[in-house]
């Protein structure tokens, strides 16, 4: 029996709807059953679905669950494959690891809260918001301890910003390895954040004039901490408690996190519990042994916070191949830590010729920007690429250009142009060009 029919049967018995609706709906169900059974022996692709015209679908001849059947709500059962995923061989365990957003199944610039990529250094803590406190101290006039109620009382701001792990694409420095949009680009997500400006909190405690740096620290087991220059903190950083209109998810730092717009994700400390002002950076483990970029000459770059401009075609992609020649809409996302996306160009011949794509509103600073361009595919093999130019005039580089500067061991900040190889059968592969 078809799964949807099972659902309508269990639905009726579990809600008790049949006792109230009686004969009419049961008759309808009987008709659906009969129809289904009648179609049963027919097999193969040509079989018309019992829900397709001229048949009326079972869900069109039954009554569904009522309001608050799902008091919170969840995606349709058939969307069960739209999930964050990890690469099990990448890390020792899942507690200090990363998961990837399923960009191949997302359609806009906002990442649904349940699909926002995760990065933990000591697993996901379950923090009690009643007990959670934010301490602000160090080179300040009046050190403070704020409860969540105190923080929510401050003037609020709402902004849309992406967060990207600088290791996004880090497995591709040497060669194309992972045949997937999700695994090569899914360490980025974008949300509407609501909270208080960090500058408001810092002005409230009073910044001593010798303060230059700010250390931010989480309440997780890693006590994850990073140093930030005071100027950035006063510019556009946010201390947020809400994500896409609801409380932060535990995965994203519930009840409180920092958002450092346009900078590498790990500085946007989650489960934020302490802010300390000082005169020098701290050089914590996460900004010395990690999140530093090793160059071919043996030197390393530290404090490389900025997310440079990057774009990727999200359709087609390895997970979403083409089905026969014809007119398609190439779709993708572009972003830059430098502000706004100015232009995105698309090539279908491996970068020989380019055409500018259409940018979709809203085009926001330090947020994902959607682009599309129509493409009539003739069925011949193609090499698809997108290239973003941001408002500073910076042009997204090729992997060859990046390797020339940085070699293959710098792990982080691979913002190179992605090439998708489209084969004649419509399948799509992650490749790199010479």
């Amino acid at each position, binding site marked *: 029996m078809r799964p949807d029919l099972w659902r309508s049967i269990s639905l009726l018995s579990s809600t008790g709807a049949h006792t109230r609706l009686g004969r009419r709906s049961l008759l309808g169900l009987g008709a659906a059953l009969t129809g289904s059974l009648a179609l049963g022996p027919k097999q193969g692709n040509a079989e018309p679905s019992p829900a397709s015209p001229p048949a009326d679908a079972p869900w069109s001849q039954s009554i569904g669950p009522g309001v608050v059947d799902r008091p919170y709500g969840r995606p349709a059962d058939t969307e069960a*494959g739209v999930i964050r*995923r*990890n690469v*099990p*061989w990448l*890390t*020792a365990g899942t507690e*200090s690891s990363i998961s990837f957003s399923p960009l191949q199944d997302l359609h806009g610039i906002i990442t649904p809260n349940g699909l926002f990529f995760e990065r933990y*250094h000591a697993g996901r803590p379950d923090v009690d918001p009643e007990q959670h406190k934010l301490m602000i*101290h160090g080179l300040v*006039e*009046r*050190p*403070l*301890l704020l*409860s969540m109620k105190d923080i929510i009382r*401050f003037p609020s701001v709402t902004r849309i910003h992406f967060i990207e792990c600088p290791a996004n694409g880090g497995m591709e420095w040497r060669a*194309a*390895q992972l*045949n997937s949009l999700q695994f090569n680009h899914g360490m980025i997500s974008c949300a509407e954040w609501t909270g208080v400006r960090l500058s408001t909190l810092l*002005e*409230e*405690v*009073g910044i001593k004039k010798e303060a230059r740096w700010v*250390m931010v620290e989480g309440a997780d*087991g890693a*006590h994850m*901490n990073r140093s930030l220059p005071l100027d950035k903190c006063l510019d556009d950083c946010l201390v947020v408690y809400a994500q896409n209109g609801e409380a932060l998810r535990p995965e994203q730092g519930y009840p409180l996190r920092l958002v450092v717009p346009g900078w590498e994700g790990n500085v946007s400390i989650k489960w934020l*519990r*302490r802010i300390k002002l000082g005169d*020098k950076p701290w*050089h*914590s*483990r996460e900004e*010395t042994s990690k999140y*530093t970029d*090793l160059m071919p000459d*043996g030197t390393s*770059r530290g*404090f*490389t916070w*900025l997310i*440079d401009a990057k774009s990727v075609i999200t359709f087609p992609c390895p*997970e979403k191949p083409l089905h026969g020649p014809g007119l398609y809409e190439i779709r993708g996302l572009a972003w830059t830590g430098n502000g706004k996306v100015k*232009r995105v*160009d698309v090539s279908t011949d*491996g*970068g*020989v*010729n*380019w*055409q500018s794509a259409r940018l979709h509103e809203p085009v926001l600073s330090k947020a994902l920007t959607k682009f599309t361009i129509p493409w009539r595919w003739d069925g011949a093999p193609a*090499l698809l690429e997108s290239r973003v*130019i941001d408002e500073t005039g910076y*042009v997204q580089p090729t992997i060859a250009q990046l390797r020339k500067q940085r070699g293959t061991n710098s792990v982080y900040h691979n913002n190179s142009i992605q090439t998708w*190889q489209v084969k004649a059968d419509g399948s799509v592969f*992650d*490749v*790199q060009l*010479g």
Partner: protein
Amino acid sequence: MSSSVKHRALLCAGMVIAAGTFAYAAEPGPGYYGYGQRATPEQIAGWDIDARGEDGVGLPEGRGGVIRGSEVYAEQCAACHGTFGEGEGRFPKLVGGAGSLRHDRPELTVGSYWPFAPTLWDYINRAMPMAAPHTLSADDVYALTAYILNLNDIVPSEFVADRESLPKVKMPNRDNFLWTDPRPDTAAKPCMNACVDPASVKIVSTAEGKNLTPRTTGPLDTMLAK
């Protein structure tokens, strides 16, 4: 302004005052909102755990040597990091890799890569052991720091780590970090037509057939380490 308008304006002002004052105009400064509590020295002391890498500011009282460090290490660290810091499975190596940073496959360890010794104390103290972070005594963290530095041949076996000695340890890779971002380090003109010779466009690597990709449909893949 006519007297009736003036009268109405005064009435409105009176109503606003009665309901509270809109506060847009005032200039915020320290204590303007007055929310929360002043953090007491005792409260701050409990959470003020950081020690700065470069100068060790924030390192607490206490001390520990290599022998004690080897005992704590065997009990708390060896299961993941290996008996001699060689790393178990995919857990990080702590030892080795000296001189490898220019190699094709560099080994980044405490000895070969970390620029500052106090950072090691800070990190062990704040985040280790992984299953029970921030549970070791300051003395034991000093001892572990001494032991791991000794395993890397950076300090002698009689070395005792404390707030005075640790900042003086010169890590081998200390001077090889650039702390200002040199990017953008690429520049290109966004050419639109006949940008490269079509004959030169060649696929030099492909993910096809590498068998490294977990599945991206259906449930989570359990693909094991390769």
